[in-house]
């Protein structure tokens, strides 16, 4: 640090943070302790009232489903924001002919990389679908599985080049998928109104524990989130790659 004043300011802030952090740590319960009723209640509700086994999924998509709706729209708005920013850059670059002449990637990836990434694409997509579909029973769900699904097209990009990535995915379809995923969550929430219940109430038949189609609205919301996250990330990668790595 060259500036003594800067170091001084950092020292004051750093010490205060350290003190508050340690004070906060003193109050943390041991991982084995169960200090609040909420966790016990969630445990009980998940299996008895929702007939699914993954507590985190039950909390995320049902018990506090409204919060998750907000979180999903944070992602949605972030993707939109990135698209808007990158589109402005695109226009600027169109006026600059020197950029259009920048060389493409000189050499493609090695055969070993191609073989490995192409071989992994199928299993990755299947695994992503598995993680999305089994959100009610095992760790995972729409969000985690959606991100895994989005890495499938990314592997294709790594194996070959952007042109192939673009040829394989249908951008229009991906955009529609993102919209359906984001809107689907809200529509599932509205279902409860037909029954005179509050927004996002789980009114659908719960089914049997262990069945893929179980948990009522949890399953639908889980799948909608999976669609939204997977499509959102592909849209984001597409925009970045279009703008950063290649001339149009």
């Amino acid at each position, binding site marked *: 640090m060259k500036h003594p004043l800067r170091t001084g300011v950092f020292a004051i802030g750093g010490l205060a943070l350290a003190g508050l952090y340690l004070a906060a740590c003193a109050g943390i319960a041991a*991982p084995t302790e169960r200090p609040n009723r909420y966790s016990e209640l969630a445990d009980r509700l998940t299996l008895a009232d929702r007939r699914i086994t*993954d507590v*985190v*999924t039950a909390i995320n998509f049902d018990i506090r489903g409204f919060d998750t709706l907000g979180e999903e729209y944070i992602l949605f708005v972030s993707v939109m924001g990135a698209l808007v920013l*990158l589109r402005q*850059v695109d226009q600027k670059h169109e006026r600059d002919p020197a*950029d259009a002449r920048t060389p493409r990637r000189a050499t493609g990836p090695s055969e070993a990389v191609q073989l490995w990434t192409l071989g992994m694409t199928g299993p990755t997509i299947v695994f992503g679908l598995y*993680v999305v579909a089994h959100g009610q029973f095992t*760790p*995972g*769900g729409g*969000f*985690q599985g959606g*991100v*895994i699904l*989005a*890495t499938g097209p*990314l592997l294709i990009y790594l194996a070959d080049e952007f042109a192939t990535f673009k040829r394989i995915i249908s951008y229009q379809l991906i955009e529609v998928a993102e919209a359906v995923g984001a809107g689907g969550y809200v529509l599932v929430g509205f279902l409860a109104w037909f029954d005179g219940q509050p927004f996002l109430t789980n009114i659908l038949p719960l089914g049997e524990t262990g069945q893929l189609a179980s948990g009522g609205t949890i399953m639908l919301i889980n799948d909608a989130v999976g669609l939204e996250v997977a499509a959102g*990330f592909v849209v*984001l*990668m597409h925009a*970045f*790659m279009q*703008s*950063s*790595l290649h001339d149009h």
Partner: protein
Amino acid sequence: MIGLQITVLLLVAVTGSAVALVRVPERQLIVMSLFGLTLAIMFAVFQAPDVALSQLAIGAVVLPLMALLGLVELRKRKK
């Protein structure tokens, strides 16, 4: 179990500090990816597999990727 928890916490501390200490952005992103991976292992060790899965996908793959693409974008604009 306690030993494993302490080990993984130390790993997180070491890789986390490494991210801050590496000064070259491209290399920093690779180290950050490794840091994301150790965080995911930590969540798994502390019995939060849902968070571990999210962290694995976001922290180890998507975040470094987005930052890398952002870096490319910045460099391109500077030219």
